[in-house]
């Protein structure tokens, strides 16, 4: 094979330093004075660099650093225990209530029934009282006569729906930025 006329590349230099120069490159080095000199210079340079001393800071460097370091944030053991205790209490309480409910099902149902009756009675009484109050108002009879006609009710319903739709459209237009500059608007 005819060796192409090319000198060593940067990759060849790396290969040389790691003792993995290809046979062709090796052959070229033997034949080319310039590349041979380059390899020697590069090797001497690398050896000089590797022989450079490692410097040390002044005595007590670690002490000076430690003075400036803020202690790593260590979660307070006491606070961690409180959180664990609170979580454990919640879990235990829930567990205990579930177990008690299962074991005392009839009693729990009677409590729930009693409470529901009381609440339902109170709600019904409130509604009845409100209805009676409204019916005793002076305008109640007029409203009753107006609402007795089906046609009027439908008309009122349509007007309400149209009015709601118009209000929604107006509100949406007010909330959209104008597409063109508006005079005197800052």
């Amino acid at each position, binding site marked *: 094979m005819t060796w192409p006329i090319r000198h060593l590349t*940067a990759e060849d*230099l*790396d290969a040389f330093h790691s003792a993995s120069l290809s046979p062709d490159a090796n052959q070229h080095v033997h034949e080319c004075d310039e590349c041979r*000199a380059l390899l*020697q*210079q*590069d*090797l*001497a*340079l*690398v050896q*000089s*660099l*590797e022989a*450079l*001393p*490692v*410097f*040390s*800071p*002044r005595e007590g*460097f*670690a002490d*000076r*650093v*430690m003075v*400036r*370091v*803020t*202690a*790593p*944030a*260590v979660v307070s053991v006491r606070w961690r225990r409180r959180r664990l205790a609170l979580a454990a209490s919640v879990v235990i309480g829930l567990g205990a209530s579930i177990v008690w409910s299962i074991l005392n099902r009839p009693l729990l149902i009677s409590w729930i029934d009693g409470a529901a009756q009381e609440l339902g009675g109170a709600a019904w009484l409130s509604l009845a009282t409100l209805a009676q109050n409204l019916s005793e108002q002076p305008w109640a009879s007029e409203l009753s006569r107006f609402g007795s006609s089906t046609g009027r009710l439908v008309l009122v319903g349509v007007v309400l729906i149209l009015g709601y739709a118009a209000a929604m459209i107006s509100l949406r237009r007010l909330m959209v930025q104008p597409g063109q500059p508006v005079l005197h608007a800052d």
Partner: protein
Amino acid sequence: MYPGEKAGGKLVAESPAGLRRATDQEVVILARKGEEAACRELVERYQRPVFSLIYRMVRDRELAEDLSQETFVKVLNALSTYRPEFKFSSWVFKIANNVAIDQLRRRELDTLSLEGSPHATTPDMIEATALELGEAAESALDEVANRELGSEIERAIARLRPEYRSCILLRHVEGRPYEEIAEILDLPLGTVKTYIHRARHELRNALGHLRSEWTESS
């Protein structure tokens, strides 16, 4: 038993000797829990390589020490953000390099030249831009820096661009592989190789007058 191992369900802090045997990951676990000995161990493990890197970047011993302290303060205060799947050394060097680069950008100490600005073309310009050494007002620390960083090769490194300087120092002084350097500097692998090759090319040119000695010695 090593730090980080569980005994009776609790992580155990070891003696200083035990900490020294532990891996970086194990020491970090303890340091995250607020163990001062573990934090100190991390500083002592990396103080020399970090200081060396920063010192060669900024070429001022006192400044390098301040920046190194800043690096470790950042490392220790941000331990909770360290991801264990990456090498701890890479993370430390990343912070150190960023601290050094930020300082260089702030102070515009880009390419110090003891022998005049690289852009100087006449002897008068060179003399005007050269740093003068050995002045009466020079501090003891400056004298130390001049002695430590005054060799030909150190001065040639100082003339490199900060990006090239970081790469060449991490590769050939700290001995980090290309992949780790790419991780440290957050650069593509190809870019790291290019920077290192260019840096070596510039150093070979800058140290060309030593060429005959190198050729003979090798």
